C-alpha cells in the first residue's frame, strides 16, 4: 500500500497547480507550450501579440460553445454531429426573425429554445428509438441543414439591427463579447461538470451505464439534458456568428461538430466515455485554434494547412504516447 500512497500524494502536489495541470495533462500542456514557442519564433512574436491572442479566442468562441456540449456528450458516451447544422439553422432563423421586425430580446431566446427542442428531438431518437448517437445526429445534421436552406430559400439573410450586431462585435474592457460569453460558459459548465451531482452522473453514465442505472440515475433524463444543452449552445453559437457576420447564412458552420470533437479529444476526452475534463478540452481548443491561426499568419499555402492540421492532431495526441506505453502493457 505504501507505494500507492506515494503516488497519490505526488498527484496532490501537482494538484496544487489546479485541476487543469494534473499529471495526466502534462503532455497536453507541453504540446501547447511547444506550439506557442514554435509559432512565436516563426512569426517574430506576432503570434503572442495581444491582438492575435484575441483573434485566437474569437476564432475559438463559437467552436468553444459547442465543445462544451460535445465534451459532456463524449464523457457520457454520446456524440452530436448535428451541431454545425443547428448553428447554421439558428443563424438563419434569428436573422429572419429580426428581419420580420421582432426584437432581439424575443428572437434570441426563441432561437435558443428552438435549438433546445432540436436537442430534445436528438435525445428522443437516442433514448426512445434507441438509435446510435452517431447515426441519429447524422440524420438531424442532414435535416437541419436542409431546413436552414429552406427557411431562407437558400439566400442568406441580412441584419441591420445594431444592438444585435453589438453582440458579435462589441467589446467590454477590450475583450470581444463572443469571447466573454464563451469563457464564462466554459467556467460555469466546467464547474458544473467537475463539482456537481449532475456532472458526476455524466461520468457515471459514460463510465458504466449499468452501474448508473442500478444506482437509480436516470440516464435518459441526463442524456436528454446533454443533447438539449449542446443544441442550445450550437444555437447560441450560430446567433453570435450571425451577429459577427451581420447576416445569417444557411451554409455556415459546416463541420463545426468535428472541430468541437477534435478539440475535446485533443484535450484528453476519450471516445470510450467516462474520461475527460472541460479544462482539458479548453486547452485542446486553444491548441487547435492557435495552430490554425499560426499557419495563417505564416501564410502557409492552404493545401499545406490541411496537411499540417492532420499532422498536428497526431503529434499533439502522441505527447501522451509514453503514458500509453504503460497502459498498453496491461491490457
Amino acid at each position, binding site marked *: 500500500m505504501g507505494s500507492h500512497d506515494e503516488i497519490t500524494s505526488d498527484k496532490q502536489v501537482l494538484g496544487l497547480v489546479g485541476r487543469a495541470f494534473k499529471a495526466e495533462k502534462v503532455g497536453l500542456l507541453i504540446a501547447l507550450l511547444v506550439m506557442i514557442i514554435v509559432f512565436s519564433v516563426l512569426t517574430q512574436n*506576432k503570434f503572442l*501579440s495581444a*491582438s*492575435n491572442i*484575441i*483573434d485566437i479566442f*474569437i*476564432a475559438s468562441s*463559437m467552436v468553444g460553445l459547442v465543445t462544451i456540449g460535445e465534451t459532456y456528450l463524449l464523457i457520457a458516451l454520446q456524440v452530436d454531429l448535428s451541431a454545425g447544422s443547428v448553428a447554421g439553422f439558428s443563424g438563419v432563423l434569428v436573422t429572419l426573425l429580426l428581419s420580420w421586425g421582432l426584437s432581439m430580446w424575443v428572437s434570441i431566446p426563441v432561437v435558443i429554445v428552438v435549438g433546445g427542442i432540436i436537442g430534445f428531438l436528438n435525445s428522443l431518437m437516442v433514448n426512445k428509438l434507441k438509435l446510435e448517437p452517431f447515426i441519429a445526429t447524422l440524420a438531424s445534421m442532414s435535416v437541419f441543414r436542409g431546413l436552414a*436552406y429552406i427557411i431562407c430559400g*437558400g*439566400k*442568406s*439573410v*441580412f441584419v*441591420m439591427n445594431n444592438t444585435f450586431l453589438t453582440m458579435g*462585435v462589441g467589446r467590454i474592457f477590450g475583450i470581444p463579447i463572443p469571447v466573454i460569453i464563451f469563457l464564462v460558459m466554459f467556467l460555469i459548465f466546467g464547474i458544473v461538470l467537475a463539482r456537481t451531482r449532475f456532472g458526476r452522473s455524466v461520468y457515471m453514465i459514460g463510465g458504466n451505464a449499468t452501474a448508473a442505472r442500478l444506482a437509480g440515475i436516470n440516464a435518459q433524463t441526463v442524456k436528454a439534458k446533454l443533447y438539449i444543452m449542446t443544441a442550445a449552445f450550437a444555437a447560441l453559437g450560430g446567433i453570435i*456568428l450571425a451577429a*459577427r*457576420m*451581420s*447576416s445569417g*447564412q*444557411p*451554409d*455556415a*458552420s*459546416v*463541420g*463545426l461538430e468535428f472541430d468541437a470533437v477534435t478539440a475535446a479529444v485533443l484535450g484528453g476526452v476519450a471516445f470510450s466515455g467516462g474520461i475527460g475534463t472541460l479544462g482539458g478540452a479548453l486547452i485542446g481548443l486553444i491548441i487547435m485554434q492557435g495552430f*490554425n*491561426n499560426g499557419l*495563417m*499568419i505564416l*501564410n502557409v499555402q*492552404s*493545401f499545406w*494547412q490541411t496537411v499540417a492540421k492532420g499532422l498536428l492532431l497526431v503529434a499533439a495526441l502522441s505527447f501522451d504516447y509514453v503514458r500509453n506505453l504503460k497502459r498498453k502493457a496491461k491490457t
Partner: protein
Amino acid sequence: AQNQSKGGNAAPKKTPKVAFICKDLSQQWFIGTSNAMKKAVEARGGKFFALDCAMSPDKYMTNLDNVISQKVDVLIVCPPDQKLSQATVQRCQAAGIKVMADDDGLIDANGHHIAPALELDAYKVGQSQGDWLGNYVIAHKSDAEPASTALLVLTVPTVSSIVPRSQGAIDEFKKKVPDFPASKIIQSPYDGTSDKAFNVAAATITAHPEIKTWLVVAPNDEGAQGATRALEQAGKDKQATVVGLGAYLAKDEFKKPYSAFKAAAYLNESEDGTIAGNAAMDWIQKGLVPYAKYKKPGSKFGVYPFGAEMVDRSNYKQIMGADAN
C-alpha cells in the same frame, strides 16, 4: 521600392502588404487568380498573401480578424457570401484598411457597391453559355423535334454565386430560342462534383425516357463532364450538347475525336488576378482608387466587368493560349 504617393510625402514607407481572402482556394480558378495577384504585387515590390475560407463564412470572419490584426494596406476579398459585404467594409474602415472585391462585389442591402470591385458577373457568364447554346441549337436545328428535346440545367442551389449563373443561362437561352417549351427546361441540383453530376444526369435521363436530344448547361466543368459521361452511359451522347464553365476540363474533351461536351465559358484566371493585383498596388503606391474609370453615374465605386469568352473545339487553342495545354 519607389514611392510615388501624391501627397508628396517622400518618407520611405515599409513594404506594402496586400492580402487576399478567398472563398475557396481549392478551386482551380482561384488558385490561378491568386497566383497571378501574387506575381503582380510582388513584381511591384509588395508583399502578398492569400487566405482560404473553404467556402465557410465562419472561416472568412476569422481570416478577416486576422488580416486586420496584421495591418495590411489593401485587402482583396472574394467572400463566400455577398451578405458578408457590410461586415467586411465596416471592419476594414474601422481598422483603416483599404478593401476591394474580386469576382464577387461587396454590396449593401440594396445591391449598391460599397467597395471597388472587379466583378465576375455570374449572371453574365451564364448568359454567354445560354447565348452559345442558343446559337448552336439554331444552327444545328437541334430543336426540330420539340417533344424529344430538353434542356438540363445543372445547378448548385447551396452556393449563392452559382445560382445566377444558371439563371443567366436559362434566360439568355429562352431569349435566343423563344419557342423552346418551358416544360422542357429541367433544373436539377447537384453538389459541384462530377460524381454527383453523373448521378443526377443519369436519373434525369431515366425520368425522361422520351427525350432523345439533350442540351446541358452546367455551372462548372466538373458538372458538364459528369453529365457528358452519364449521356455516354445512356447512349444518348451523340445527339447531345453539353456546355461547361471554366474550360479547364473542356479543353481536354476537345482533344478527343468526339465528345458531347462541346463548349465552355472560359475565364482567364491570370488576367483577373493581374488586373486586381495591379489595381491594389496602384491604390497603395499611387493613391488611385481601383476601377474608378468604370464608375457609373450615381454610384460610389467603379466595377470592372470581367467577362467570359466561350470556347469550343474550333477556337479554344487561340483563345486560351497556354491554358489550352
